[in-house]
């Protein structure tokens, strides 16, 4: 195993182990998403959703719950000296970016394992559109993780950390949200799932993932400089 791959595996394992032991972010994200769904039920005064409304409620909920996890992503690194350890280790620093993105994707997947079935139980009439939704969720998770990790690593060293992440992240993920809701809306349509422009939206998601993954990987070295 090359040093980079070993480092990537080590950092990812560390993050997952730490999260499993302390359970800091995941339960909060899951609970927040369920409560938000309840608020949407009363805010919109609807007991069943379909089409664009369903897609909007689902993605807004997932996005805001994700921000909770993104806020906490680098806090341990900052407080326990993880950044210094990475700077001293003889590895490519962008490995930290890759490992954190992978960890965040896993957190988001865990969040969706809880939030999406509950969303379906609360608001949807049939579970037909949920299968292909997995593809949309996966691609959107990658993009959200790439952008979120980048912003989180910059915000963790600032004064108004919890304020900065939502402020800067939300405009950046607008194209991601456009594509995700565009793909989800026909899947949750009233008459049953349809695949209108599904392939196009998946391609846009993939493009977003690619661009922000590459940008994040390229600039991360500069962020870690002392």
């Amino acid at each position, binding site marked *: 195993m090359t040093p980079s791959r070993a480092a990537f595996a080590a950092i990812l394992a560390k993050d997952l182990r730490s999260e499993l032991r302390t359970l800091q972010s995941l339960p909060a994200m899951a609970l927040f998403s369920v409560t938000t769904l309840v608020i949407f039920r009363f805010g919109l005064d609807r007991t069943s959703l379909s089409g664009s409304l369903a897609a909007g409620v689902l993605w807004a909920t997932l996005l805001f719950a994700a921000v909770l996890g993104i806020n906490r992503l680098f806090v341990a690194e900052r407080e326990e000296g993880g950044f210094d350890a990475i700077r001293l280790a003889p590895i490519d620093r962008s490995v930290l970016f890759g490992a954190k993105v992978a960890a965040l994707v896993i957190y988001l997947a865990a969040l969706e394992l809880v939030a999406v079935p509950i969303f379906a139980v609360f608001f949807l009439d049939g579970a037909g559109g949920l299968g292909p939704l997995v593809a949309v969720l996966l691609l959107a998770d990658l993009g959200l993780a790439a952008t979120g990790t*980048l912003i989180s690593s*910059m*915000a963790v*060293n*600032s*004064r*108004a950390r919890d*304020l*900065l992440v939502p*402020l*800067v992240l939300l*405009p*950046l993920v*607008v*194209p991601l949200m*456009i*594509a995700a809701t*565009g793909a989800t809306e026909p899947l949750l349509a009233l008459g049953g799932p349809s695949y209108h422009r599904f392939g*196009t939206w998946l391609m*846009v998601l993939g*493009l*977003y993932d690619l*661009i*922000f993954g590459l*940008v994040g990987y390229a*600039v991360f070295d*500069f*962020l870690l*400089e002392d």
Partner: protein
Amino acid sequence: MYGKGLKPLSIATVAMLAVALSLVFFYAPLDGDQGFIQKIFYVHVPLAIVALIGFILGGVFAIAHLRTNNRKWDAYSYVSIHISVIFGVAVLITGAIWAKASWGHWWVWDEPTLVSFLIVFLLYATYYPFRYAIEDRDRQARYASVFAVTAGAFVPLNFMAVRMAQSLVHPRTFATAEGGMPGEMMLAFLCMLVAIGLLWTTLVKFELTAKSASGQVKRLRRALDAPVGGGSSRIAPEVS
């Protein structure tokens, strides 16, 4: 250092603006369906084009800063984004005025270019709270450059995504710069574009000069206030 050439540049800008505005009001013909209100197009579109180019330049300067670690590129990047954000406000306001006059609504979600521009503007507006939340000056400059590069990569992606989100049924109702404009209109438009570009450059140069001057004053003040023979062995204050 920065102020050289500022006066001739300012004079050229004012002259070009005067020429372009007279072309707009006296030479370009009235639009067939929209009438006089269409003339706001000559202000709105050049402002938008120049603002977007300014944002991309901000990203380019940021790349130069990250690669060379020379602080002047960071100053260029910061000021480019600053002036472009101000132009962005003007774009949104003139766009709203035009929308109200043409369609009776101050804001319409139908026009993908305007919506994309709003999102880009909102992103660059976060540059300031983001930048000033970071205390260490070196880190602040570096993170701001990373932000400018990321935001620069974001702009084309955003325009594409918003355009795709438009329902294909909605026709484009704006007469765009490319579509069949008579020669006189095109001339007036191009002159306004050059004039607004010059205005942007003058304002950027102005702000850079002002910042550089106030930075020098601060350095001088600090050097004068420093205890004599205390920490430094220099006798005369340092002048940069």
